[in-house]
């Protein structure tokens, strides 16, 4: 699995994980992100069961395992958090931050040690050493309870399925040509995002944030002005309407 430092400040850094060459063919490629502070670390959308071993092996390239103290699951999907049962046996003292509405569902993945820290609908904050992140509501994008993670210091927004694209396993991790990239995003957003009003509500919220890196869970990372380009494109896109004719 590839990993690389995205951004670093004196107090903390963000690390990207993904593009695992050993990933079984039929499972969707996912990006994982980890914010590392002086003594702690927050792993965001840790991934599915199949990704557990490569993730664990990659994490200890950057930090000792005991430094991984916090997990975050943007929503309840298997590609987000089905590895929980394994993390539960690995990090029994860890805390999992996730939408309150999914607690009873996520626990089906097996969770007897880790503590579930329910995020209320309006969002919340988490302080790790000198760093603070905000859990930004992204409900119905696509799950009915959904959060993104914003770090004002590094100006990183971990945007879950928003900005996702279906890519080759060896694709670059950054968007290079935005217009070309749109082709890989349109169907995903039209099909997986169910609500135009939820989408516009999220865009209005996110426009108020100062974002340098927008990091989706699939596909490529948007940098600088590409973030604004994405928000403009997404605002115009009609979602919740991409059911193919032969499947109806």
């Amino acid at each position: 699995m590839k990993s690389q430092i995205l951004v670093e400040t004196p107090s903390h850094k963000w690390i990207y994980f993904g593009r695992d060459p050993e990933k079984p063919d039929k499972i969707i490629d996912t990006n994982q992100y980890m914010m590392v502070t002086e003594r702690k670390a927050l792993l965001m959308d840790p991934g599915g069961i199949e990704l557990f071993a490569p993730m664990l092996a990659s994490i200890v390239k950057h930090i000792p395992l005991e430094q991984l103290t916090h997990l975050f699951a943007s929503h309840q999907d298997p590609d987000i958090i089905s590895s929980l049962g394994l993390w539960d046996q690995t990090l029994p003292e860890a805390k999992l931050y996730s939408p309150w509405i999914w607690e009873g569902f996520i626990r089906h993945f097996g969770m007897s040690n880790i503590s579930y820290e329910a995020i209320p609908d309006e969002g919340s904050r988490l302080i790790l050493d000198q760093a603070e992140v905000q859990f930004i509501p992204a409900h119905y994008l696509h799950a009915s309870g959904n959060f993104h993670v914003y770090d004002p210091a590094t100006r990183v927004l971990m945007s879950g399925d928003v900005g996702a694209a279906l890519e080759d396993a060896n694709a670059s991790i950054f968007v290079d040509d935005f217009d070309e990239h749109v082709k890989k995003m349109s169907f995903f957003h039209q099909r997986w995002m169910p609500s135009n009003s939820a989408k516009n509500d999220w865009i209005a919220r996110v426009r108020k944030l100062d974002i340098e890196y927008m990091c989706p869970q699939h596909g490529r990372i948007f940098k600088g002005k590409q973030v604004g380009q994405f928000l403009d494109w997404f605002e115009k896109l009609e979602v919740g309407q991409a059911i193919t004719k032969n499947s109806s």
Partner: protein
Amino acid sequence: MSKKRTQVSQYYVIAAVVAAELNHTLTYCKQINLTASNAQAASSRVGNAALGFKALTGFIDDLACYTMKAAKDINFLANKASKMATEVARAATALKHFEKAKLNSRNAAYSQTILPAFKNITDRHAELQSAFQKIINKMEVELFDLKRNLRTANILASICRIEACRVNIANQATFNDVANRVDFVANKIRQRVDNAISLFDTSTQSRAA
């Protein structure tokens, strides 16, 4: 380790099937109870000539109660084994993924920090497997005990037939019917118990293979 995993997944199924087989047994036990009650009522009607038979109905009732308790106990063990098999399978999966991570991280800066968690999971897996095996062994022993005790049913049925000869012809049919029902239901239970035992035999054979 893969052989052990196969064994656990077989026991997974065995535990569920044993529970189902013994559930049927409970229904049969209720039938024996009912037969014993009817027989007791019939023997009271007949009077002194059926005193020996009346005593027998107590034994029939006892046998039904014993069988029911044994079936419930084994059923409890089967359910416990089934749940534990899930935990064993989970621990085995964790171990498999951990072994992979350990191998892949051998050159990582902090690869050693995986080891305490790896040891915990290895220990837990061994502990669970040992506890699971104990339950399976206990279940097997209790099934054999139940089968042995069911032989009493045939003896009771035979004595019932002998006692039937001591009453008048009009009541003989009732008492013979009780004997037949005890035989019939006991055979049904034995079949279920044999089915359950044969599952363990199959598992042992496939383990040996």
